[in-house]
């Protein structure tokens, strides 16, 4: 069965420090991986994706993610967190044979001044 795991319900980090939000996946075939961010009472906003090619992908607002095939992971990272990065982050996966995106349970990121 296809699935996405975000093992941390919440991540706390101080402003200016690096942040990592973890994601692992299980999917048949080659994965297409995505990160979305959700601010309170808003929709899901696309951050970045991995389809093929370079394992390190860069996205909006200084975020990046690294695809690791052997560990089936796609962790979201940012070198220096901002208070405004505080939000709910969702990892998602799909593939060429699927008709939907599978979402993780979400990780709440708290960046403190």
């Amino acid at each position, binding site marked *: 069965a296809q699935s996405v795991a975000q093992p941390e319900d919440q991540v706390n980090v101080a402003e200016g420090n690096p942040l990592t939000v973890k994601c692992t996946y299980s999917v048949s075939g080659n994965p297409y991986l995505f990160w979305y961010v959700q601010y309170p009472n808003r929709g899901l906003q696309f951050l970045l994706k991995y389809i093929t090619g370079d394992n390190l992908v860069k996205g909006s607002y200084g975020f990046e993610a690294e695809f690791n095939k052997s560990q089936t992971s796609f962790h979201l990272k940012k070198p220096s967190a901002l208070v405004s990065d505080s939000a709910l982050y969702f990892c998602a996966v799909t593939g060429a044979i699927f*008709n939907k995106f599978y979402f993780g349970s979400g990780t709440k990121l708290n960046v403190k001044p």
Partner: protein
Amino acid sequence: EPEVTQTPSHQVTQMGQEVILRCVPISNHLYFYWYRQILGQKVEFLVSFYNNEISEKSEIFDDQFSVERPDGSNFTLKIRSTKLEDSAMYFCASSGQTLNTEAFFGQGTRLTVV
């Protein structure tokens, strides 16, 4: 920048009533989805739609639910005989020409069943 628009932003309905949630996907997109989210938590898949028919539906998407693309722009979710547990944020999404493109989500319709 093109965006997915959803109306209404908030719908309050009495239990047992029918509601229609409306969505206008991005104009050149071919794949359409409905997801829902209860209390800002897990994002649950309801249904996907391609080429004027349902591609896949979840266990949640039973006979109470239906989707329609009545014209070239709108994509609707109908919930018949609403139940209290249908209260949630409903998100419409669309994605482009192939399956390896990201989905763009609307701002959601908050459905409250009383």
